[in-house]
């Protein structure tokens, strides 16, 4: 249906329709963000022998994040006197908008997708790259030295890790023969790509952790060195926007991994088909999300001066070798 709408001539009806759809997705994503933050705090709490939030909203602290968000909205909005005002205000928006835009192309189930783009994967990578501008701007506009360092680090890191990230999925693209995410899922009917592309998966996982700047790649906002990195000076809902962008990316990246390497919404075996795709998708999704949380509570941070080296000297060659290997396998066996 959406495909038709996209192709029909523009009009008020279309606008309202898309607006409502976008709003619904936003609410769904916000709901996810709320509970993924809770999940993160719970998982980390349990690993660290604590309970995590357990006061508000019953034993599992189900309303904790809601209360936190409410607090952030009510907080005084501080803009430092010497900050670059327009840019300071603009930065969180620039950081957040692309994170939401990438969601449009992700097929959550065979029917629940907003835009079935021919170059979905490319679109995802390209648009998500825009966030860096918001972060750099925020770091620069705050007029704080820690923010500046954090922003610079973030930019350097995200740009360099984008390359191995794209390189590592080239194998998947070779095997499926398409950049369309739906096609990629369908190509995994007879086996997930993680089985065919283990090296690609590992490179992708590492590079995506760096893209999300999560531990062990959380250098841009390493709280023990740069206080809070690029968002040191941000408060209230502006700060919330940065956090939101981060978690929406986590959502998107986890969904992307599910699609690229774990067969998206499809059941692992044919006879399990009676379980709806949405269930499969969320199951796989949760496992991968847990992986990220698990990493975060286990590893220390990477060393800053080895970071670039790692991306260019290790991940890049490995990803390239993986492409070669895939090409050979493809031409020999398929």
């Amino acid at each position, binding site marked *: 249906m959406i495909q038709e709408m996209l192709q029909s001539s523009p009009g008020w009806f279309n606008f309202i329709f898309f607006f409502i759809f976008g709003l619904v997705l936003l609410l769904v994503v916000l709901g996810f963000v709320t509970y993924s933050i809770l999940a993160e705090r719970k*998982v980390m709490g*349990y*690993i660290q*022998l*604590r*309970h995590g939030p357990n006061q508000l909203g019953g034993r599992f602290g189900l309303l904790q994040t809601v209360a936190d968000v409410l607090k952030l909205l009510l907080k005084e909005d501080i803009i430092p006197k010497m900050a670059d005002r327009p840019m300071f205000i603009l930065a969180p928006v620039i950081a957040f908008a692309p994170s939401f835009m990438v969601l449009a192309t992700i097929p959550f189930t065979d029917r629940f997708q907003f835009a079935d783009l021919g170059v979905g994967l490319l679109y995802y990578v390209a648009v998500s790259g825009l966030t860096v501008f918001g972060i750099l701007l925020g770091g620069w506009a705050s007029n704080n030295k820690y923010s500046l360092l954090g922003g610079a680090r973030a930019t350097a890191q995200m740009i360099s890790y984008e390359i191995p990230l794209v390189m590592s999925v080239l194998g998947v693209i070779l095997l499926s023969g398409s950049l369309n995410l739906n096609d990629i899922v369908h190509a995994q009917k007879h086996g997930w790509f993680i089985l065919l592309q283990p090296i690609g998966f590992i490179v992708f996982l590492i590079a995506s952790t760096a893209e999300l700047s999560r531990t062990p790649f959380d250098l841009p906002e390493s709280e023990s060195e740069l206080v809070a990195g690029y968002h040191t000076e941000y408060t209230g809902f502006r700060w919330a926007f940065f956090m939101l962008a981060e978690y929406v990316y986590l959502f998107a990246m986890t969904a992307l991994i599910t699609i690229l390497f774990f067969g998206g919404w499809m059941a692992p075996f044919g006879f399990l088909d009676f379980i709806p795709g949405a269930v499969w998708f969320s199951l796989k999704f949760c496992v991968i999300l847990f992986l990220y949380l*698990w990493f975060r509570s*286990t*590893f220390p941070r990477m060393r800053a001066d080895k970071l670039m080296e790692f991306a260019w000297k290790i991940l890049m060659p490995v990803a390239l070798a993986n492409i070669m290997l895939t090409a050979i396998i493809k031409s020999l066996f398929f």
Partner: protein
Amino acid sequence: MLGLAKGLKYTLKQLSREKVTYDYPNEPLPLPDRFRGIQKFYPEKCIVCNQCANICPTDCIQLTGKKHPDPTKKGKIIDTYDINFEICILCDLCTEVCPTEAIVMTNNFELAEYSRDMLFKNLEYLDENDDNVRQVNKA
């Protein structure tokens, strides 16, 4: 990579382990008898010897005595006794020197107040502070 895997295994194992946090303030903290908290003062035991005020390293005890009301008895009885908990470091020295155990430690430690003036505790307060009193006072 092996080291990373070992670490992951370790943290995964912790997931199901017993939690180590205390449920304070819902449950009071378990404290040993010797714990040094806000003092309990027994006015009737005090002989106004001033030793506690002299040993206090931060000079936070102020006391005055008065003549014994019963003229047949010698000595003094306590009139006012104040401890300034802004500077008391709960070091236990006052209770250590007191010859009659008129001042002893308790396990109460919650001293948070809205105003600094409230931290100035007088004889009545210290007298009423009579739960969780330390059982054994001298080694």
